[in-house]
């Protein structure tokens, strides 16, 4: 039952990750704590109290440090909006209004704006620089060339404790663990659209494996939103990096069409592995939504038993017949630009489709363009495995070959796919983990 709680790390523990130190460039003395500002007094020029600060509104655009557009004030029983233009001074304990007379408008949420206290404080956010999900204990504002902006996020426990204290203590920033706001990515609340617009750039600097780590840290509703907000091709790459069980949960929960189109974008071997994890019913429904080509290919991969060469191979192969020229072989490669990671060489087959040789890309590149590929064939012949052979045998064969891939053949000797070193690493890693678990 403790398995319910993720206290045993499934991937690398956080401490092993590269975590570039993000420093804040503003002196502590100039920082204003957003949490401390709540309850602060808004005064007019004469020094009379107009209301109390309830929330801080910032503009939500591409700016690295969002600009404060105004404050939500509680004036008597009403909640009013005080535009930033009407603020003469702001310090840790409150604000002074610019004009003596003031028309306070009732507060309404506006598109493109976000409230620091209601929407961000104490909520989960993504720290892009550290590749982790954090929870904010405070948010810091600072004045940059005359405008107040959101500059930092505090994740320290010290700030949480400080906020329990009296107002004097609460207002003093304790930036022990502050992250520069420009590397922060908010996460949507369930049911709301993800606010990816702003730092999408920062997110896209992450590698798919890092994004996959983040996705796995999120709750199911947030995952959906997160994956949907990514570029479809990036999303597919991210899914390829996820743990199979986590991926299965994610795909089962999302609309069938979306799951189908993501799977179509994934490498076929990774897609079939994910489908394998699903219930039969879910799997059939997802396959139903796919295009004809992808469905046929994945159905074929799924027809192999688990833990056989066929189930771990990628079915992407570039095949030419003996009579083709090197030029034609290179032209054939051009159509597979998207799958470049899965292609190690060009397979040469005879007229009945049986494998003759596997020409590494390197050899192809150095060969005379007009020569026939037949002239490149010869010993050493490629290491091959049968599609129904067990993974353990594949591993042995792989070690023997000292190569980066082995070719998978069907019973008639026709190539049906290729197993690459990364597939082997996945298999070994899984063994390694299981081995450790069962100790």
């Amino acid at each position, binding site marked *: *039952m*403790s*398995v*319910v*709680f*993720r*206290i*045993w*790390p499934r991937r690398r*523990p*956080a*401490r092993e990750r590269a975590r570039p130190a993000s420093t804040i460039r503003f002196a502590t003395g100039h920082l204003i704590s957003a*949490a401390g500002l709540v309850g602060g007094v808004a005064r007019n020029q004469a020094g009379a109290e107009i209301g109390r600060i309830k929330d801080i509104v910032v503009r939500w655009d591409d700016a690295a440090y969002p600009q404060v557009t105004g404050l939500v004030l509680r004036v008597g029983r009403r909640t009013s909006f005080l535009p930033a233009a009407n603020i003469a001074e702001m310090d840790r304990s409150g604000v002074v209004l610019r004009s003596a007379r003031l028309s306070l408008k009732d507060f309404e949420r506006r598109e493109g704006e976000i409230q620091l206290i209601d929407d961000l404080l*104490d*909520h*989960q956010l993504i720290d892009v620089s550290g590749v982790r999900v*954090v*929870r*904010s*204990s405070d948010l810091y504002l600072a004045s940059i060339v005359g405008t107040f902006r959101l500059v930092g996020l505090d*994740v320290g*426990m010290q700030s*949480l404790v400080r*906020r*329990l204290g009296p107002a004097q203590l609460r207002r003093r920033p304790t930036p022990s663990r502050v992250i520069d706001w420009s590397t922060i990515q908010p996460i949507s609340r*369930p*049911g709301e659209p993800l606010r990816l617009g702003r730092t999408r750039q920062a997110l896209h600097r992450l590698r798919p494996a890092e994004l996959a780590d983040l996705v796995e840290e*999120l*709750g*199911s*509703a*947030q*995952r*959906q939103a997160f994956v949907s907000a990514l570029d479809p091709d990036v999303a597919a790459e991210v899914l390829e990096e996820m743990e*199979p*069980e*986590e991926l299965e*949960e*994610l795909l089962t*929960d999302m609309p069938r069409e979306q799951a189908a189109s993501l799977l179509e974008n994934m490498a076929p071997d990774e897609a079939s592995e994910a489908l*394998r*994890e*699903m*219930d*039969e019913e879910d*799997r059939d429904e997802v396959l139903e939504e796919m295009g004809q080509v992808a469905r046929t290919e994945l159905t074929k991969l799924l027809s192999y*038993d*688990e*833990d*056989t060469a066929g189930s771990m191979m990628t079915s992407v192969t570039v095949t030419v017949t003996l009579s083709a020229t090197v030029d034609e072989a290179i032209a054939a490669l051009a159509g597979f630009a998207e799958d470049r990671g899965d292609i190690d060489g060009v397979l040469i087959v005879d007229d009945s489709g049986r494998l003759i040789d596997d020409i590494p890309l390197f050899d192809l590149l150095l060969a005379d363009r007009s020569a026939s590929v037949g002239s490149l064939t010869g010993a050493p012949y490629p290491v091959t495995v049968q599609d*129904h052979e*067990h993974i*353990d045998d594949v591993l042995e064969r792989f070690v023997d070959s000292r190569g980066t891939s082995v070719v998978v053949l069907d019973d008639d000797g026709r190539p049906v796919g290729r197993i690459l070193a990364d597939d082997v690493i996945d298999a070994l890693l*899984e*063994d390694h983990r*299981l081995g450790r678990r069962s100790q």
Partner: protein
Amino acid sequence: MTDAGTTPPNHAAQREPRRRRRWRARNLLFVLGPGLIAANAGNDAGGIATYASAGSQFAYRALFVMLLVTVALVVVQEMSARLGVYTGEGLVSLIREQFNIRLGFFAVVCLMTANIGLVISEFAGIGAAFELLNVSRYISVPIAAVVIWGLVMFGSYRYVERVFLIFTIPFLAYPIAAIVAKPDWSEVGKQTVIPHFVGSRGFLVMVIALIGTTITPYMQLFQAAAVVDRGASPDDYRSARKDAVTGAIFSNVISMAIIIATAAAIGGTGALSSAKQAAEALRPMVGGGAVALFAIGLLGASSLAAAVVPLSTSYAISEAVGVERSVSSRFREAPLFLGLFTGQVVVGAVIALLPGNLINLLINTQVLNGLIAPVFLTFILVLANRRSVLGDAANKPAFRVLATVCVGTVGVLALAVVAMTVVGWF
């Protein structure tokens, strides 16, 4: 299962395919899902002592109260599951997001107090179990504390917890024991269905203890965390609800069986004073082995909860604070998580060693839990009422009334006990 239709080739079958092994592990966990876990959480050391004491002191009269408590438990567990499914976050995290920090802190203090009470009762249960086997608790409790702490810290706990879980099976014998004991079924039926209340302080305290042991804050945390971790989405709400409801009902069927079996064996002989007495309820079924069987069940249930309760609480709080929460991290990396866990185990074990009657200690901790329960329940109720949290899944008017009545009643009863205790001092 994914591949039920295909037969693996022979050599693959002999080798025990990797992925299949993983699936089997998951299915096992599914069987031991929140349902059975909820049952075990309700029927830990404190639960057994309280239900048995209720049966021995008031015989079947406590059954009607249990019927009401069941309704309340179902309502509360359903809300917790719904919050987990629709928000994807743990309860403590939700409290941090939704309430101001001082209220949130108050909730956590209440939760910690209730949980320390619970951990004390688990170690008291371990002590009582060993005393039945003639081992002094001054030996057994410190050893148990070190062993449980070590198992969790050094990671092999996951396997041991299955053993503990199997140890608790004897308690599933209670429904059979209740039948074998040949209770007066017409009396049982009458006392369950016909509303009644005994107007004494003793009865009121017992009611609070029953509430406290059945509706523990820890169970709500666990329920929400369980659905969140399964990655349950709003589409899975119906099955999550079914699981929460059946778990709650199943748990209370066992509880009521304990009351009936004890009432039939030693009903009306006054408050329970020793674990040996409680074991009498199993005698009609298993004869001379009753004491040993009871001791094993008590040991399993207590040990399981002595690890899981502090672990899940530390996890929920660390999650809400947003700090590292992995048992494989070093103390320097996860001071809050490991500190909370260690602190709870130490305090629980030390207090369980203070001289005094273990059964009284067990029941008193449940009373404490019952007094705190309404506070935590109010937080859950408010969260489940908020449309800003749950959207269209927020409590509907009728459900809101029912839930408010449940929480309110628990609150009024708790206040009454406090008032009577204070009055008793003068």
